[in-house]
């Protein structure tokens, strides 16, 4: 059967690419530490030897808008273009091409539809920084075929936190039954407390340290019930107006059922705290 070999969770902060594009001699201590953590996740993923990657992120009003806003949508193409004009303009993000795994996308789509998760799908999906930035950090070669899954955490109403977890669980059950022996890595991007476009944006301090500490705790302890209870729309808005992208990591928790969380950190720096997570299968014989 196909199986998930490693799951990593990381920020898709588009400014991070700009930071690491500067000469190394000009990197701040924060930049050095972000790169170290990105490398740690990259190595975990590399050691797991995935053949293909499921990329979970959220479109930021690039392809999807309120004329047609899918809660969860999957891209099924044999290659994807990444990066939009305004991301080049504001963040100097590179335009890129990434191969796609159509076979896996189709298997996931058919399997989830049968199990009560009605993914939308797209045969013409262009991915934004929620996929491109994580790839730059954890698979900069951009050589593995991907199945992008985009969630709606930007245009209310968004699905409740519990739904993200359920979708992750259903995805996992579908993957576990796919014939063959495909090794699948998963890269999930999101953020901790964060504000963009609101009055606290770009504050040189964590947006909501209490939320960040609790959120990292839910992940490291695998405490999904508390996470679901606490991640109401209003609680997340109160922690910063785009904090909602944290719930992508609850989808990861659903995918990681039975795995060990082997890394969980909210990296505190000047500005918003940055998430770094990893879940790995329990090795045989381990407790």
């Amino acid at each position, binding site marked *: 059967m196909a199986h998930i070999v490693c799951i990593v969770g990381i920020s898709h902060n588009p400014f991070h690419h700009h930071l690491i594009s500067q000469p190394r001699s000009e990197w701040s201590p924060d930049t050095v530490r972000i790169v170290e953590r990105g490398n740690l996740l990259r190595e975990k993923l590399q050691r797991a030897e995935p053949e293909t990657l499921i990329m979970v992120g959220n479109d930021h009003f690039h392809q999807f*808008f309120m004329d047609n806003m899918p809660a969860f949508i999957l891209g099924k193409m044999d290659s994807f273009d990444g990066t939009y004009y*305004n991301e080049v303009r*504001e963040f100097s993000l590179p335009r890129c091409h990434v191969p796609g795994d159509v076979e896996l996308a189709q298997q996931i789509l058919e399997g989830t539809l049968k199990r009560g998760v009605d993914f939308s799908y797209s045969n013409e999906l262009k991915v934004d920084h929620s996929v491109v930035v994580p790839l730059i950090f954890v698979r900069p070669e951009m050589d593995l075929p991907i199945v992008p899954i985009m969630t709606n955490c930007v245009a*209310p109403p968004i699905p409740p936190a519990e739904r993200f977890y359920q979708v992750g669980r259903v995805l996992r059950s579908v993957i576990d039954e796919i014939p063959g022996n495909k090794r699948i890595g998963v890269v999930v991007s999101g953020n901790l407390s964060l504000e*963009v476009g*609101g009055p*606290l944006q*770009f504050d040189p301090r964590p947006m909501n340290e209490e939320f960040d500490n609790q959120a990292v705790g839910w992940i490291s302890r695998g405490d999904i019930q508390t996470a679901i209870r606490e991640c109401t729309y209003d609680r997340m*808005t109160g922690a910063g*107006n785009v904090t909602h992208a944290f719930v992508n990591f609850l989808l990861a928790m659903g995918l990681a059922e039975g795995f060990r969380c082997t890394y969980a950190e909210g990296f505190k720096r000047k500005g918003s705290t940055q998430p770094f997570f990893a879940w790995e299968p329990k090795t045989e014989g381990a407790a």
Partner: protein
Amino acid sequence: MSRYLVDKFLYRVDRDESALKAYMENPVAFVANWEEEEGPWLNKAERTSGHRFTEEERRALAERDFEKLYAMGAHPFILWTLMLPVYEKEFPNFRALVDHYNNKIRPHGRPDFST
């Protein structure tokens, strides 16, 4: 009120280099033209009739009055991402623009921006 149409304007202009340039050069004319030539179009062939700007919305967009747009419930993410290129050359640096922007919108708290 058409919060949706305001968001559609912000979204379309920010993501199109030529539209952004035209809006920055002549916002009054651009908004008037957009309202006829792009706003009510679902795609190149199909027109819809469900949304029109109010006078207040039309004026706020033409005046690039982000404070008013924020208070009216424009989506804060797409409002910021458009106002950033519109205003950045008027400030000595990014931080100065952010401080100005945040101070202007702060009194309005967190308006409902659902559509």
